[in-house]
């Protein structure tokens, strides 16, 4: 049994990304280097033989997925599981959490100008975000961060794959001193910041 065959068997038996370390556990003979080489070998072979799937890097691991050009055929099959798309509110909250994590609910609502408790709950249920700690602030509010599932869902290898803040509309630095109106804009970070 060649390493590439063992790695292929594992990737085919999994419905979630597997890390190189996960894959290397399958046999004593496998080192992480051997696994990486096997993945490269398989990718080249799938390319060369025109397979309808390929190995993609997601959330720090590897997973076999169909190539995008087959989506039209798969979309019409009921036996192919499809997930419901996220609402614009959910995407807004996710974007804020992704760039500013760890972040509490009050800060998210301040940025959006609307209540977000229901959306946070939905995102937690879909395991796209999770509680990552508590703020030191008043009432020690919960802080949220994104999960590995988040990366998987959007096809990102890591948070580095998020759109770069420089490519998004500019954010002004926060003004010094209390804002003239409500005084409710307590923010810790000044600008849009990058993913941590």
């Amino acid at each position, binding site marked *: 049994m060649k390493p590439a065959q063992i790695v292929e068997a594992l990737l085919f038996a999994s*419905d979630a990304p597997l890390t190189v370390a996960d894959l290397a556990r399958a046999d004593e003979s496998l080192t992480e280097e051997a696994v990486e080489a096997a993945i490269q070998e398989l990718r080249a072979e799938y390319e060369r033989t025109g397979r309808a799937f390929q190995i993609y890097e997601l959330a720090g691991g590897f997973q076999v997925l169909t190539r995008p050009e087959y*989506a039209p055929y798969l979309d019409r099959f009921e036996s192919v599981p499809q997930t419901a798309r996220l609402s614009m509110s959910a995407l807004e909250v996710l974007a804020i959490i992704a760039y500013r994590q760890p972040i509490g609910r009050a800060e998210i609502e301040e940025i959006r100008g609307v209540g977000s*408790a229901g959306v946070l709950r939905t995102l937690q249920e879909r395991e796209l975000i999770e509680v990552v700690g508590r703020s030191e602030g008043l009432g020690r509010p919960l802080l949220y961060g994104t999960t590995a599932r988040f990366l998987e869902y959007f096809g990102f290898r890591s948070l580095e794959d998020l759109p770069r803040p420089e490519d998004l509309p500019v*954010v002004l630095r926060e*003004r010094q001193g209390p804002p003239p*109106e409500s005084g409710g804009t307590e923010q810790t970070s000044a600008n849009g910041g990058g993913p941590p």
Partner: protein
Amino acid sequence: MARVDAGDGGFVVELEQFQGPLDLLLHLIREQDIDIFDIPIAEITAQFLRAIEGVEALGLDRAGEFLELAATLIRIKVQLLLPRRVDEETGEWEDPRAELVRRLLEYEHFREAARRLAEAEAERARHFGRGFVQARPPKPVAAPLELSWDDLWAAIQRLAERTRKPAEHRVTRPVVSIQEKMALILEKLMELAQVEFFQLVRPFGDRVHAVVTLLAGLELTRQRYVLLRQREPFAPLWLYRRTQGERGGTRALEAPPAALAGGHAAPNGKAVNETGADR
């Protein structure tokens, strides 16, 4: 509902399509190619107020969010009518719009990030993983459980946070409509010739009531039933009854001396401004 044909602006918005007040405001600004660093507040405020007519239909929580921004816009508009305040240290004018601009740009930043995420989501959805992975009979033994008291305690805290909030909302946010508040103001002004704004709000002690009462006052001003006057920002806001005869004219009955000039600066140098009459 909440569909607006702006007679002058000529554009139409559907309130439901917006994520919230900042989204709507940003739309009004970007749609008309307005310089975000020099927003014509009076014009934008008028458009915003027109756009949120019928906002109550969205339900109270969402309506309150739109009304809150409406109140902020009105306050900025009032501040802009005052003589400019200059920062002692920098010698620069403190633009009352600055904080709003910062918030709008920050929101726009994340709104765009959300749109990029939607694109990534759509692209990712074109890839399918293995739907059926039962290569061999599934293992009956479940993985050992990893569980700590910290996990449980985090759940308890979350539960506490969630179970506390709705109760507050239920108690402190009864349904408020502009019509109701207009009736309240007119009723008060049957007894009294003038009434101070917070006397109308205090019994309810809630921000939503304050905002809705203010909007009701503005509406009555527009319809020339009352006059709304404030000596300076943060000074008490007074509502004055107008008589039938005066409704044709513009002069207020029993307006305070400082307001008689009708301009924005009174002879004594104190700023006076008139709120309302947005159109």
